[in-house]
């Protein structure tokens, strides 16, 4: 087989199967295969965290805790929301400009920054939430066990999140090296 024989097959391949109307629909986020789903998830998370921001002071006895603990919780919630927004923005605008190699390098660098921000915001949010909930609590053995279980669960979540980011970054590094 000569590779050039494949050229005619390549040129013949495909069809103009989508109308202009269908193509127009594809330019909208609400019809996007993954962005629409992520936007809904993002909105639900923002609503839940905003509700927490408004309710924690009364509902979780914020008035009885020092100002610094309250401020730390508020800051970490805002950081978590910002991290979500940055992540969504990146998914909507991946690095597709420039040549392929440049785009891959840029994508890997951006993912690395996003991974650090995502982990930091998750750790800050979990740590301040635990601090807030356990502040001024008198611990007994049962409460120590619950706290330890929560800490282990959070650590496992961070670990799996880091592995998942690492896998994504490695994928782009591999592609880059492959060129």
């Amino acid at each position: 087989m000569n590779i050039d024989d494949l050229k005619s097959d390549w040129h013949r391949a495909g069809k103009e199967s989508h109308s202009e109307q269908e193509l127009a629909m594809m330019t909208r986020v609400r019809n996007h295969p993954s962005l629409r789903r992520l936007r809904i998830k993002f909105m639900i998370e923002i609503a839940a965290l905003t509700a927490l921001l408004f309710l924690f002071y009364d509902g979780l006895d914020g008035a009885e805790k020092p100002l610094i603990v309250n401020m730390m919780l508020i800051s970490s919630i805002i950081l978590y929301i910002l991290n979500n927004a940055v992540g969504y923005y990146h998914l909507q605008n991946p690095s597709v400009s420039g040549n392929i190699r440049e785009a891959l390098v840029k994508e890997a660098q951006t993912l690395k920054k996003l991974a650090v921000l995502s982990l930091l915001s998750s750790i800050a949010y979990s740590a301040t939430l635990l601090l807030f909930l356990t502040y001024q609590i008198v611990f007994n053995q049962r409460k120590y066990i619950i706290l330890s279980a929560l800490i282990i669960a959070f650590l496992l979540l961070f670990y799996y999140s880091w592995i998942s980011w690492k896998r994504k970054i490695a994928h782009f590094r591999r592609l880059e090296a492959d060129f």
Partner: protein
Amino acid sequence: MEKIFLETIGEHQRIIYKVSRMYRNTPEDQQDLFQEIVYQLWRAFPGFRHESKITTWIYRIALNTAMASYRKQKSPVSITEHPPDLAEPIQAVSEREEWLFRALRTLSESERALISLYLEDYSYTEIASLTGISENYVGVKLNRIREKLKTLSTSSNL
């Protein structure tokens, strides 16, 4: 602007179809990637300055999007059917087309980008500029890809 964009993409949608089919295994994933590419083209369209051919611009965005949209690999390419005899005339274009895309999906992602540009009749200089590697290296890589495809065409397991 939307009207011009839709006319342009409508006219050249075969490129998006071919890139989607080359980079995804299942029809659902191919349709998702097609949509993702159209979305990214639409976002990038205001920045298109006609410094390159429109088809080159579409290829660049389409290939970048296909490679940038990371996803875990699902089932590997199914390798069960016998290859059609490529020396035969076209009576079964779809079968030959099917073979072509199956063969392309066995290549690495970077090799797919290079071979698609080559099959589209881009020169080594243009391929080098689109991919960011040297012309010499384009030649070396294309020779390797040729060998791989040759082996695939003679083997009976694709």
